[in-house]
């Protein structure tokens, strides 16, 4: 049985923003992560504010500039199956399809997928860790086989989303609404690494609501690949989203974004720089794969992720060549 809470279902975004800003309020989109967190006591909720009546936050539509607008409450299933997403933003369709299980994708939303809490078993378990306001990260000296090899400082979570790396590769923006208005945030700036805060994973403040995701007009090709310990469904051990424009074998621009290995979707900047302007041949691919793990600092039990990322990046680039 879940702990007690009150429940409200606002009829408009304005009303949701009012209610969301009240003491003890948490937002309920698909609810798949929220209910797990409440059940496990990861955090508490005095009031659950359901977004399910906000139809305007659902659906995929063309924007006037030729890009795409995805309402934050659009389910992962809808995105995975959407013809335009599959045709022009393949990495996102693949990321949505690779997340969770069919049942969870039918319920889980893209907004929720970006805002889900980490899966670190100390954070989810009965440990008062740094991210829950405690004084230490138990993964440092504990079982850290699924933890990060890049970007860890004090806390060593990995960001669990499969759609986030695709959206970063595709150069998306997200709209964040609050009672004082709304703002567009480049998705590169949406996620918060532990060096900036160990208590939140994104820039959202209490009372903020992620309302939509905006994709620029499609250019080039993109792909997302994910490796998991269990074939049927699981979080990523490592994954990579690549969005690239390749003309006659030469890379004009490329974004390489890793999942499952860092506390935020991780742009492999050295790999991107190395690829840009070069022929996408075996030599370039080998060097880019090596560069993708530049600066990696594995913990005691997750050194395998370095090899995994190298192989994954090489295979993914080969498929694009």
């Amino acid at each position, binding site marked *: 049985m879940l702990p007690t*809470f009150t*429940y409200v279902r606002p009829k408009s975004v304005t009303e949701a923003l009012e209610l969301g800003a009240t003491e003890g309020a948490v937002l309920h989109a698909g*609810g798949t992560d929220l209910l797990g967190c409440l059940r496990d006591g990861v955090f508490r909720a005095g009031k659950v504010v359901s977004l399910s009546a906000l139809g305007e936050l659902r659906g995929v539509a063309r924007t006037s500039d030729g890009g795409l607008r995805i309402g934050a409450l659009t389910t992962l299933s809808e995105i995975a199956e959407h013809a335009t997403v599959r045709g022009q933003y393949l990495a996102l369709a693949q990321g949505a399809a690779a997340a969770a299980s069919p*049942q*969870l994708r*039918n319920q889980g939303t893209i907004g929720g997928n970006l805002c889900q809490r980490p899966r670190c078993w100390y954070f989810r378990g009965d440990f008062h860790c740094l991210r829950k306001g405690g004084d230490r990260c138990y993964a440092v000296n504990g079982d850290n086989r699924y933890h990060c090899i890049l970007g860890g400082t004090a806390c060593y979570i990995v960001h669990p989303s499969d759609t986030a790396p695709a959206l970063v590769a595709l150069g998306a923006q997200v709209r964040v609404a609050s009672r004082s208005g709304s703002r567009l945030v480049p998705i590169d700036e949406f996620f918060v690494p532990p060096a900036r805060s160990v208590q939140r994973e994104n820039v959202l403040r209490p009372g903020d609501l992620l309302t939509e995701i905006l994709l620029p007009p499609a250019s080039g090709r993109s792909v997302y690949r994910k490796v998991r310990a269990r074939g049927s469904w699981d979080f990523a051990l490592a994954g990579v989203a690549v969005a690239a424009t390749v003309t006659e074998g030469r890379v004009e621009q490329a974004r390489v974004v890793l999942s499952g290995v860092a506390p935020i979707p991780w742009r492999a900047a050295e790999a991107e720089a190395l690829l840009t302007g070069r022929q996408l041949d075996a030599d370039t691919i080998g060097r880019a794969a090596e560069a993708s793990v530049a600066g990696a600092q594995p913990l005691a039990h997750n050194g395998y992720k370095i090899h995994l990322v190298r192989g994954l990046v090489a295979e993914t680039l080969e498929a694009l060549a």
Partner: protein
Amino acid sequence: MTDDRKYLSRRAFLESVGVGAAGATLAGVAPRAATAAVQEEGLTWVALRVNGRSHQLLVEPRWTLLDVLRERLELTGTKLGCGRGECGACTVLVDGTPRYACLVLAVEAEGREVTTVEGLMRGEEMGTVQTAFVEEDAFQCGYCTPGQVMAAEGLLRRLPHPGPEAIREGMSGNLCRCGAYKHIFEAVRRAAELRG
């Protein structure tokens, strides 16, 4: 412990006002006096549509659809497995698509069409997926079977003729501890055949 006692007392209270009686289908509007009294107890009315029947129920917001199906409506075909959206034993259809009932708040199912394994029956006759599971011997202990059946039903409504890969993918959110997967996949293929 405290939570359990509170829960039991609320349940007793519910039954004392006569709306929590198992399986009761109340037509029309809830009694006003009772509404005012129970809302102070943190209960709220919810209108659910399950297997084609409408129900007006008093629920706590924290009760899941699974809690309400099993404990209030006595539709015990839907099973509690992990209770955390990992095993699929509680799979039901919400507006025709498979979901984990343990991760859906009952209040969130308001206005949706919920279908449980009981809803696949045509009188005393089993539905096509159930028939196929029997024909193909697609279970051992049977505990995961209602969830498997509902996942298959949802898959076939979306994709009437799935290939082997689509079947594996469509059934990937359901665990079978006995490992009857091979027969389960065969049963889904057979169910597609039976549906024509």
